[in-house]
């Protein structure tokens, strides 16, 4: 999995390229912990090139949402493919995240 990061003012975009499996999740967690801090007002997670999310990946995404809530910012998960969306729905994540 590769992560591309783009920052524009208070907005941060991360693009995930590849599988968000148990081995990839710590890498995303590290990026999120490093990047989501004071001064970030909006976070976009672009998942158009991510075709697989394990529960470890879901936990990292939940962690990002909690961080953005604590920062009083917003978070949007974008371009989720159907098979991955089903994983979000099955686990109730579809109700706690904002999709676009």
């Amino acid at each position, binding site marked *: 999995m590769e992560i591309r990061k783009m920052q524009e003012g208070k907005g941060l975009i991360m693009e995930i390229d590849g599988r968000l*499996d*148990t*081995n990839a999740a710590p890498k995303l967690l590290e990026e999120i912990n490093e990047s989501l801090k004071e001064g970030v007002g909006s976070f976009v997670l672009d998942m158009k090139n991510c*075709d*697989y999310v*394990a*529960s*470890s990946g*879901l*936990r990292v995404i*939940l*962690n990002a*949402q*909690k961080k953005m*809530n604590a920062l009083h910012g917003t978070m949007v998960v974008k371009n989720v493919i159907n*098979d991955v969306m*089903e*994983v979000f729905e*099955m*686990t*109730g994540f579809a*109700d*706690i*995240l904002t999709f676009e």
Partner: protein
Amino acid sequence: MEKQERKLTVDATLTSLDEVVGFVEDSLSTTSCPMKLTMQVALCIEELFVNVASYAYENRQGVCTIRLETQHTDTDGIVFIELTDSGKPFNPLEKEDPDITLSADEREIGGLGIYMVKKSMDQVTYDYCNQKNVLRLEKSWHIA
């Protein structure tokens, strides 16, 4: 009806994860199993294997064996998978399901993987016999 049976034994560590998931995907790719279902089954095996790799042997070294069996025609099929380890007795299916209706801030982080396995497979069972943990799962498909 075509049948296949395959077996893989790996070290029960996260470094074996790609091999385990690859084994499941390769095995299903020669059947009529739809892509989406292949992904679901691979995901479930990942969740169960990660559990074994993380907890079964504590600080000892150990192995995990995955036996996979498929039966299929052009339109229908079924896959049976059995994960076996010789670690301490542990039934992951007894874990309480997470409350998936809570808000992001209230959500706990554990239990999601097993919950996904229970929700997406047709059948999941656990046995402890001959000092081995045996998890069996089963999923069938039908292409309309």
